[in-house]
């Protein structure tokens, strides 16, 4: 089973210098700029269909648990029932409305949701209430799914939906067992009475099962008898899916590596703003590198350098002449009064960006703060988005993305992509870092030409401190928070 941890081995995988000169790397066609393609624009889609009560949901849950990927989404067709008209609503209350026919499902909405996810946009999933037979007010917002499990009676019925799926599974369980399970579930979970359930079974469920559900099994790649009891078949499915996912992460990693090699120095590196290499920066950096430095000292001196970096980052904010006349206490009118034209929000990369929080709070006490958790897979080193919460932004808002230490740049690239997917303009993103590997900076700027990067020390600056191998190992947040 795959596991993730904060301290990533991406250093090894992405900063392998021998790779930079390897011959298997292809130069991109001239004129086209390399692009970052995040894993969530090509989600792996698994369809799980089966008769009512066959155990589809259990199978779907089992698959999700076994592949253990972040941002795995289960789309249940049950939530995509069409909104009923008042007449249909009356029928439904007496269990006379045919919920099992393909016409009851809103396939268009489903395709739209999956379409959004495939283009990397956040999407709103409806939530259906079986007690009132209506869509509830609330929706579930889904973003960044790398695996989608589509589960439902008719998951393998609709042609366009089938075309989107990578693996299709049909759960085949004896109809008698299905009925027994359905009676139990509808009485306990959905608050129906026995007579209604049985009427519905005879009137709608069984005919539809025979007419639509069972025939759709021919669309499946694999028919799974006895649902989750069938350990061998389940293991085979999971092994197959894991193989496919590994291929996907290799492609993702390969693309990230390629971004590090294309050089376009002149224009690219102009987007980097270095902290002036002052006596203060040199002395503070020496203290931060020194293993004899206590944690109290480390935090104090890091906060000092963070303060300088934030000040430098805020120079990116646009100013314009003050709209109103500004008078001094002695009633002199200021001719050069200027005011900020942009609001500022910050987003920290958990945990390496959180080391800036103390300093930003002292600079802009009421700043809105978002968080992104991107961890690298322990085995492959592939960065994966685990969670995000973003502050509301206007079109002109300047966004500071805090990432204290850029090594491969992979996490920052993914972070920027998340921000772009949520409508932040590339030119308004300012990455704030203290230490940065040259290759990581290049990788970020190859993928996104309009972001600005604020850097304290980078391996390309050529002074005695910047030769330091410390650049390759994450340590800032470990020392700052005192836990590895």
């Amino acid at each position, binding site marked *: 089973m795959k596991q993730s941890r904060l301290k990533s081995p991406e250093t090894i995988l992405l900063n392998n210098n021998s790779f930079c000169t390897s011959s298997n790397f292809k130069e991109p066609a001239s004129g086209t700029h390399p692009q970052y393609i995040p894993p969530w624009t090509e989600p792996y889609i698994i369809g799980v269909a089966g008769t009512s009560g066959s155990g589809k949901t259990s199978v779907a849950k089992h698959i999700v648990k076994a592949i253990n990927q972040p941002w795995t989404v289960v789309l249940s067709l049950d939530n995509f029932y069409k909104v009923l008209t008042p007449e249909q609503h009356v029928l439904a209350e007496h269990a006379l409305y045919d919920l099992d026919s393909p016409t009851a499902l809103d396939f268009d909405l489903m395709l739209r949701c999956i379409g959004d996810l495939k283009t990397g946009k956040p999407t709103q999933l409806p939530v259906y209430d079986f007690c009132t037979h209506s869509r509830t007010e609330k929706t579930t917002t889904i973003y960044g799914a790398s695996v989608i499990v589509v589960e439902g009676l008719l998951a393998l019925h609709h042609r366009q939906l089938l075309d989107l799926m990578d693996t299709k599974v049909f759960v085949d369980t004896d109809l008698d067992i299905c009925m027994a399970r359905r009676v139990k579930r509808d009485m306990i979970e959905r608050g129906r009475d026995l007579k209604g359930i049985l009427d519905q079974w005879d009137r709608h469920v069984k005919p539809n099962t025979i007419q639509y559900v069972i025939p759709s099994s021919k669309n499946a790649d694999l028919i799974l008898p006895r649902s989750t009891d069938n350990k061998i078949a389940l293991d085979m499915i999971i092994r197959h899916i894991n193989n496919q996912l590994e291929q996907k992460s290799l492609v993702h990693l390969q693309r990230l590596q390629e971004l590090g090699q294309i050089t376009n120095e002149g224009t690219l590196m102009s987007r980097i703003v270095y902290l002036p290499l*002052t006596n203060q920066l040199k002395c503070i950096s*020496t203290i931060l590198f*020194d293993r004899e430095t206590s944690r109290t000292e480390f935090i104090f001196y890091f906060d000092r350098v963070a303060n300088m970096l934030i000040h430098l980052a805020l120079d990116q*904010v646009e100013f314009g002449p003050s709209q109103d006349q500004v008078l*001094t*206490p*002695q009633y002199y009118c200021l001719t050069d009064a200027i005011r900020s034209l942009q609001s500022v929000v910050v987003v920290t990369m958990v945990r390496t960006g959180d080391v800036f929080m103390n300093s930003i709070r002292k600079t802009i006490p009421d700043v809105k703060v978002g968080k992104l958790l991107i961890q690298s897979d322990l085995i492959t080193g592939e960065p994966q988005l685990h969670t995000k919460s973003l502050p509301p932004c206007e079109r002109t808002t300047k966004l500071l993305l805090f990432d204290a230490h850029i090594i491969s740049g992979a996490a920052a690239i993914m972070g920027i992509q998340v921000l772009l997917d949520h409508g932040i303009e590339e030119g308004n993103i300012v990455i704030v870092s203290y230490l940065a590997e040259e290759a990581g900076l290049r990788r970020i700027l190859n993928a996104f030409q309009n972001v600005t990067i604020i850097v304290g020390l980078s391996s390309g600056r050529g002074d005695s401190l910047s030769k330091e191998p410390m650049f390759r190992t994450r340590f800032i947040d470990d020392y700052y928070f005192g836990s590895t």
Partner: protein
Amino acid sequence: MSATNYPNVFMLRQTNQLLGLYTIIRDRNTKRGDFVFYSDRIMRLLVEEGLNQLPVKPTTVKTSQGHEVEGFSFEGKICGVSIIRAGESMEQGLRDCCRSVRIGKILIQRDEETAQPKLFYSKLPDDISERYVFLLDPMLATGGSAMMAVDVLLKKGVKQERILFLNLLAAPEGIEAFYKKYPNVKIITGVIDQGLDENKFVVPGLGDFGDRYYCI
């Protein structure tokens, strides 16, 4: 750091951000909370800039992975001296960068009879003659009281070139006077204003700094 016409004067980089901060603290409608907050931010920048003027020496340290790094360490000890009352507002900015810094105090007021600045009180660290001194007073107008403070420091044995005078706002008249009398005292300032009015107030200025920071 921006260049000035005087070799001993160092001015903060005149960025939009800095000028935006000055717009806020010059504005007569700015409330005291904001005045204090934004002047404190500028003071922090002045202190950082002052510290950058101090000499450093090469040193070698070992990282946690055992690599040796050729780095730098601070050379020489510093202390702060604030001119009561407005200068005391800058002590926190100094402490934010140098936690246990020693701070001396000097009280200079205008003598009602002679209209000249007069020294009323001074309390300074014993070993001040061996230290770099950050002289703190937010406004440099005529430079009368600050030059008197420098005189006190020199009498205590502090070397002229080891005095750094930190202020938020300086008038060209004050800078000129300082340069003539103490050409080796470094002046670290945020903004150089137009000049002085007939009451010797800095123009356009920001009002009485001490009053706005502590009282009004």
